[in-house]
């Protein structure tokens, strides 16, 4: 699963536009991602539990990056997520995706 995601990251799908291509090509620094993720865990539980806010652990990295990109450019609308994503650069989104991909929804934390 992970290997497939990394492979796909290198040969990202043809439908990606230029901004998305750049984002998908970025290398994710998981340690930076862990720090940045502390902003997210006030709302998204690290355990993957769902109580009114969807879980974001254990996602495929490409899907995660594109979802954050869509919040950032507001093609997906949500007040809080739009403001949060607006100040994330490609480096930050890549770092977050790398970190969250390391978490397993079944782990306790």
């Amino acid at each position, binding site marked *: 699963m992970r290997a497939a995601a990394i492979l796909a990251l290198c040969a990202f799908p043809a439908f990606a536009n230029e901004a998305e291509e750049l984002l998908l090509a970025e290398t994710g620094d998981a*340690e*930076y991602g*862990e*720090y*940045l993720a*502390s*902003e997210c*865990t*006030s*709302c*998204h*539980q*690290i*355990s993957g*539990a*769902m*109580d*009114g*806010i969807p879980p974001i652990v254990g996602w495929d990295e490409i899907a995660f990056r594109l979802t954050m990109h869509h919040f950032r450019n507001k093609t997906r609308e949500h*007040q*809080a997520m*739009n*403001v*949060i994503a*607006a*100040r994330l650069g490609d480096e930050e989104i890549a770092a977050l995706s790398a970190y969250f991909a390391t978490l397993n929804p079944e782990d306790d*934390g």
Partner: protein
Amino acid sequence: MNINRRLFMGTGAAATVALSAPMVRAAGHGKPRVVVVGGGAGGATAARYIAKDSEGAIDVTLIEPTRTYYTCFFSNLYLGGFKEFDDLGHTYGTLASAYGINVVHDWAVGVDRDARTVSLAGGASVPYDKLILSPGIDFVEGSVPGWDISVQNVMPHAFKAGSQTELLKAQVEAMPEGGLFVMIAPPNPYRCPPGPYERVSMIAHTLSKINPSAKILIADPKEKYSKQGLFEAAWQKYYPGMIERLGPDFGGGNVTVDPSAMTVDIDGEVEQAAVVNVIPAMKAGRIAELAGVTDGNWAPINPEDMSSKADPDIYVLGDAAAQGDMPKSGFAANSQAKVCANAVRGALTESRVFPAKYTNTCWSLVSENDGIKVGASYEPAEGKISSIEGFVSQTGEDAAVRQATYEESEGWYAGITADMFG
């Protein structure tokens, strides 16, 4: 250092309970020491992140007098009948057992900044390399003439949660038919800007079920308040005719209370009340003042890492800090704690330090399944925490949006309490 430690442990056994994991403790000698005062939204989060991320390289002590922390957040939902009292309570067991934090149930009563020690009410002295203060708020004496802390059981504030919240709820439920509930709202700045108005909504919700002819009167020293248009629209929709607010133009800032007569004098008009909820003016928790890190009512901080402007080895989080553009909220305190934890760890163990960024969202429930929110992102600029971009709910949103907003707040409550207590 050893003497202090032994003294601390010795007194600890008599006056306090140190719920520490023995293994981590035994290995603690010579490690850098972080002491956190206050186990609330800021302090519990900072202690947990430092202990978790340093993986035992830092000795973390958390000083908190209460064994169960009752969240102020969602305490209004308890007043509205949407939460049980026990839903608000959280304990420190996991912080001790899973993270090896030395949890000491005692009051910090002094800070010796030269010796770098914190003295406890039980007599112990706890040494630190870095001290984090997150003591929340205390009330400004004399801000509501006639009221002082000794009458809090007659006219509760319920702005520190726990028995005060239970008392206020019991008083509301015991109101005579058609009785008057008066809230004395606080001047800025205070913890949780929408808090008093969410409380009015929740009390109105309860009264509309059990005592529909009761009235709510708010005496308010402020011209305007957070999410005002949204609250007013909700009050009109759900509780028409029940709530009246007197702003400063109508004497809302000129209030005296008489707890023995249960009366409130608003600009010369005396009201006989069944319940009086006095929310006085606020200032940083007293230990911040005792530590000498306050300037006026609050403790100035450097926005890059939450360190005190008065002492580089002390950090002040949450309500007690002069936090620039951020409102005093649990969300904000939790957000600041994570920036601080990263900086403290970097200073003590040379782990990587990343740039500060902060966020806040404050949700309020105005009626069943009708939630509203306001939020923003922040970063250090011009010597303070400055807002970058914000958002707020709109009047006239459809019911599905409001319900989703309420459900988000439930998710956030589960998220932040897990982030604080493990």
